[in-house]
């Protein structure tokens, strides 16, 4: 059954006579295109507002994307493998609520970090077990857990909020390592390298691509597909936990509506970064540049006093546009070739 499906869903691809030169490939790549957009946004922003080029303002701007990007790295791997996790924002809510609860019991910062990571891990394990253990479609499972995880936060908190985090806990979201370089930015850079190595330089990363391109083939070549997918859900859960620690530390308070709607922005970031939403291709450098583009656009709009909901229109259009435009372009090219 599933063998025939894999054959059916892969349309025949045209194989060219020879490969283009490495330079040509680099120049035509999505990442270079995106880098151009990033530079354009940067230049436009610096013309649009005199406050943009201030080092402290730029440093503040990085907070717009660092937390989301932390999740986007793990999400990129998950989407490359052909799955998706829409519950990430709700994992943040639950992890943050658990940390707030721990504070009420008198927990210190190290315990809070462990609680945040632990809840993220558990949520990821729950998603992973449902998807790989029971063989359920990840999209429905995570729509379900999206309600469930945030629902638990609402049950615990209702219309109240947790505050009173210890003073040294503020370092994760508000601390600076050196001059204008924030802890979050350093974490973002470190994770970017870590995930790039994981996806592009390890056997595990190759397995992720293989699974995304052909799950049945992966199985026959000895890759333990469910185990890899389970690991990816765990990873996404833990990274959501990390994001929860940073965000909670930055805001200094937990409400059940924390990080509401972030799943959309994280998925948009991944797709904008050139990851195929159907799985099988994508790179971490692409996601890193996409994070910068989205962060700079959001920050630029903010400087121009554009309300948040108008930015969300832009993000929605961006999500559709980045998938639609290459398809339209390819179709037009194909039409011209006859």
């Amino acid at each position, binding site marked *: *059954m*599933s063998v025939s*499906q894999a054959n*059916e*869903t892969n*349309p025949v691809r045209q194989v060219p006579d020879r490969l283009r030169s490495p330079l040509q490939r680099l120049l035509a790549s999505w990442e270079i295109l995106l880098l151009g957009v990033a530079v354009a946004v940067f230049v436009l922003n610096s013309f649009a507002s005199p406050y943009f080029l201030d080092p402290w303002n730029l440093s503040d701007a990085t907070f717009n994307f660092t937390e989301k990007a932390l999740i986007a790295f793990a999400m990129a791997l998950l989407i490359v493998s*052909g*799955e*998706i996790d829409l519950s990430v924002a709700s994992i943040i809510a639950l992890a943050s609520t658990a940390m707030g609860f721990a504070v009420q019991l008198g927990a210190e910062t190290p315990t809070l970090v462990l609680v945040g990571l632990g809840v993220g891990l558990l949520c990821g394990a729950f998603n992973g077990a*449902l*998807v790989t253990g*029971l*063989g*359920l*479609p*990840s*999209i*429905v*499972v995570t*729509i*379900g*857990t*999206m*309600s*469930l*995880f*945030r*629902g*638990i936060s*609402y*049950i615990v908190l*209702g219309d109240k909020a947790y505050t009173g985090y210890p003073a040294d806990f503020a370092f994760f979201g508000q601390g600076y390592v050196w001059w204008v370089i924030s802890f979050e930015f350093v974490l973002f850079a470190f994770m970017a390298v870590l995930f790039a190595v994981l996806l592009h330089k390890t056997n595990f990363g190759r397995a992720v691509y293989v699974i995304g391109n052909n*799950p049945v083939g992966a199985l026959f070549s000895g890759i333990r597909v469910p185990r890899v997918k389970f690991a990816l859900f765990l990873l996404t859960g833990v990274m959501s936990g990390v994001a929860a620690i940073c965000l909670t530390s930055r805001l200094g308070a937990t409400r*059940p509506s924390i990080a509401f*709607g972030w799943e*959309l922005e994280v*998925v948009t970031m991944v*797709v904008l970064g050139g990851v195929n*939403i*159907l*799985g099988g291709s994508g790179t971490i450098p692409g996601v890193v540049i996409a994070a910068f583009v989205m962060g700079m656009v959001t920050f630029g709009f903010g400087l121009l006093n554009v*309300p948040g*909901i*108008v930015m*969300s*229109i832009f*993000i*929605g*259009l961006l*999500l*559709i546009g980045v*998938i*639609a435009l290459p*398809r*339209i372009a390819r179709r037009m090219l194909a039409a011209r070739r006859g």
Partner: protein
Amino acid sequence: MTLSFLKSRELVLGVAILALLLAIASRFPAFIEPANLAKVFNDTAPLIILALGQMAVILTRCIDLSVAANLALTGMVVAMLNTLYPGLPIPVILMVSILLGAVMGLANGLLVWKLDIPPIVVTLGTMTVYRGIIFLISDGAWINAHEMSESFKAFPRAVFLGLPVLSWIAIVAVTGFAVLIGRTALGRAFYAVGGNPHAAVYTGINVGQTQCAAFVLSGALAGLTGYLWVARYAVAYVDIAGGFELEVVAACVIGGISIAGGIGSVGGALLGALFLGIVKNALPVINISPFWQLAISGSAIIVAVAFNATSTRSKGRVILKKAEHAQ
């Protein structure tokens, strides 16, 4: 075989609903008085109407997450129309809301059909775009009860043969859908496209067009519900029905509609919506905080999808792969 399974699924759900009602009634007999049950049904009517449209979309292996935003935008537009031209007759308002909703559904459908973009991505995107447009046209302001005309607000509440018009519209929608799904070529095409897109192509069905039709249908119903919602609650603002799309999907999944497409029934969608509606209305009665609602519908989705999967395991797991069309 399939038919008997569907029947049993509806039976299981029907029994579950009865058990739920009896359990509530054992402590709060007033809950199952006919007048209260009619009230619960009326309260659930918007969910039922939206679940029907969503069912058509899910049958064709797609998903429509933009229904709540569509509802809110249409509601805002007709409310603004009403404040500008208070004399506009109700049939015109109804036409406008259905048309506007259908146009938004068409936008989703065309992106899925003509550009082959996965439905989940399209509707996640249009969901935020539609919500954002409400803000743009309203400047974030509310339209309150006193700004709406009396006839505008009265229509869904008007009582006809013992039930409010809102309930009647839900009943008409269910009946209409039963006919559409069971007795027309389009209804069969929904199942064919979801069950096996490749086979559907060979039988002469245009897969993309059928999916587009499902989106238009879902959009039109969302638009209609938009007017009914705004008129019933007598207020329109950016965030009305926020997150309602998840409840609609939940109703479908609970009703046994397979997210992998091709399996489901009108009765299932109706019962799934009623199940959620009864839970929602029962929570305050049995003195549980309404904050439990979200977690309960989340758990219900997970339990239902696990239950569905035991019978449809071979249906494939990677839903995003399913988004690819047969060319």
